């Protein structure tokens, strides 16, 4: 039965979170979000992360035994809406919480779960994920970084790139080739690697806007114990695709981010007093608002399908494509409107950083190939 409304208990959860954010989230924390690439900004965000974690407002979807709230899917949706609307910086280990932790929960030892997970949640340890390589971008399964068994150790050699937080990380969830003779998806294993080991070098990789969020990470005969293996030997591809069984409402981030950005833009437009009268500007704003709001329903349909036994894949994959293109169009409108005028260069910076939206996490073109084949059933080229 079609119903867009949320149950009262979910709305109560929203109020509780909103109140907590209103009391605790300060302007300097919000501002630090834009300086997260700097050491100082990073530390502000890390402290905020700890404060949220100590109030159990990080990783709410995790089971309570690991410090989460075992939040329902609708609570997760509301959590994303409220934290983004309040402009709360993301937890430092957002990739770790969403992508690495589920694998640790599923494959890790009790010791790993007990020690690694709470520290990840509080950002006491910084985590990175070693996946992309210079020759393995969209075609991730062709990765070449190699780990060779040597007694009760693995010896790792190779290079990763586009490693978020690689230059700050304490641990890396590293994907390596352990069986070079096997078909490419079947010779990959997953290791948990201490980033302070000898032979590891992380070089910051500044992006086109001059900021450093990523690193290139080099492994030169790095020795890790065999117990570093997470999941089955040569079963790393399965670990990489461990479904995010906890984070099931992340799609909400796609629409809320764009809606918030659009509202910030409008707020700035009307800041000088009066409204917006230019019909061209109104039409472009309307175009962006329509797509952001239709994206909202698309994302919610994905969440709803997941909740009610449907297939969330089609909506989710389309939503990612729409989000990337919409985000770039929002940025283009902002830049066309404010150009280089804004005091802090904020909109020019957005115009540049938005380039990544159709590349990171799988390019729009590869995503469309996957949608064509998996959703529409078109033949593989």
């Amino acid at each position: 039965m079609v119903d867009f409304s949320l149950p009262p208990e979910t709305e109560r959860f929203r109020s509780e979170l909103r109140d907590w954010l209103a009391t605790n989230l300060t302007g300097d924390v919000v501002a630090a979000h834009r300086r997260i690439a700097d050491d100082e900004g990073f530390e502000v965000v890390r402290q905020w992360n700890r404060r949220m974690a100590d109030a159990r407002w990080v990783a709410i979807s995790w089971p309570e035994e690991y410090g989460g709230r075992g939040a329902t899917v609708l609570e997760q949706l509301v959590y994303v809406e409220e934290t983004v609307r309040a402009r709360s910086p993301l937890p430092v280990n957002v990739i770790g919480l969403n992508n690495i932790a589920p694998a640790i929960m599923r494959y890790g030892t009790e010791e790993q779960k007990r020690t690694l997970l709470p520290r990840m949640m509080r950002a006491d340890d910084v985590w990175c994920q070693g996946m992309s390589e210079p020759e393995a971008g969209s075609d991730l399964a062709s990765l070449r970084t190699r780990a060779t068994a040597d007694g009760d150790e693995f010896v790792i050699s190779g290079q990763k790139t586009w490693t978020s937080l690689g230059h700050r990380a304490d641990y890396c969830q590293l994907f390596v080739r352990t069986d070079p003779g096997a078909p490419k998806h079947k010779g990959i294993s997953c290791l948990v690697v201490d980033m302070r080991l000898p032979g590891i070098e992380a070089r910051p990789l500044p992006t086109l806007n001059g900021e450093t969020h990523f690193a290139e990470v080099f492994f030169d005969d790095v020795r890790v114990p065999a117990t570093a293996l997470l999941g089955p030997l040569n079963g790393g591809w399965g670990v990489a695709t461990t479904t995010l069984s906890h984070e099931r409402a992340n799609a909400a981030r796609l629409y809320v981010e764009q809606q918030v950005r659009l509202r910030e833009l409008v707020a700035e437009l009307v800041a000088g007093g009066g409204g917006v009268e230019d019909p061209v500007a109104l039409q472009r704003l309307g175009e962006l608002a329509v797509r952001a709001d239709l994206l909202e329903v698309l994302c919610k349909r994905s969440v709803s399908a997941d909740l009610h036994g449907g297939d969330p894949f089609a909506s989710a994959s389309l939503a990612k494509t729409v989000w990337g293109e919409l985000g770039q169009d929002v940025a283009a409108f902002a830049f066309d409107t404010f150009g280089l005028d804004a005091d802090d260069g904020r909109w020019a910076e957005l115009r540049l950083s938005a380039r990544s939206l159709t590349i990171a996490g799988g390019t729009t073109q590869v995503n469309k190939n996957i949608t064509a084949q998996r959703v529409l059933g078109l033949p593989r080229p």
Partner: protein
Amino acid sequence: MNLELSDEQLALRDAVRRFLTERAPVAGHVRALLDDPVGTTDGVWHGLAALGATGLLVPERHGGAGMGMVEAGVVLEELGRALDPGPWSSSAVAAPRALRAVEGGDVAKLLAGIADGSVVATVALPVTDLSVAGGDEATLEGTIAEVPDAAAAQVLLLPVAEAACAALFAVETSAPGVTVTPLRRVDGSRKQARVTLVGAPAERLGSLSAAAVEALFDDVLVARGADALGAAQAVLELAVAYAKARVQFGQPIGAFQAVQHLCVDMLETVELARGGVLHALWAADHADAATRHLAATELKAFAGHLAHVGDMAIQVFGGIGYTWEHDAQLYLKRLLSWSAFLGSPDRYLVETGRLLVRSQTR
């Protein structure tokens, strides 16, 4: 939050789809009626009545099914998918929604006739500036440039501007002084007519508040949007099936990435519209007025994009899609008539922009 259709709604969809596939196919029914001003046959109309479809939105106490806009949307999507040229959206959606909004006035008989299919009614929008003489038994004078399905209708429901906002009048098309002139438009599957009234007898059914007029306008937009969604979904399916079957350069053209991306772009547009339709249909009955109005406005503002699905489909078909013989043109025209319905998408995009700015300056 649950955005899935219920089993009952799916059963309704299947029943209507089966009926239209068997009794009103594009080749035998739709194409035969492209130049016909009425756009339906007694057989098809009474068949829809027998399914309970004509009375879907009519309250049960007046002989209808007492359902809501989500169910109406299920039927509309099927009618759009079938390119049905009949007056269902006018008689089964616009008319009952107008009649329920009237304050005062006895509309029971009219609703009962609509429900059992014996009366076809339609509504003129936006509010007209006809001149009125007399009281409850009035006469009307003036011309309305376009009224949907007027040639099929026995009863015209005409909102007329008055001091408080508007009054709703009922005019029988068979009455003296009423001239209905069918208009040829690009989309032969949609019937429009000019209505000229010269001292035409009219019954004043009651008054309509400004809020009621806005809600009615939104309902009519959303209904036509749901219809267009069905047409877009159908032509998407045809194009994807063709891309799998058509072989050139030794392989199905659907194996080429350029064609795949065209198909995904169509799917993306259709799925965005599907969400917009679903939300607007739900909002029509369950949301506050501001949410409902924004949802309807945004859906209509997206109409230009949805029409482009017809263009992209023809691009996938290539030359065959450019022929009269192929049905792709019929879907494109159905989508274009949605795009042009009650004003161009640009107007609604500007209005959406205005609503956004207003929400930030309050």
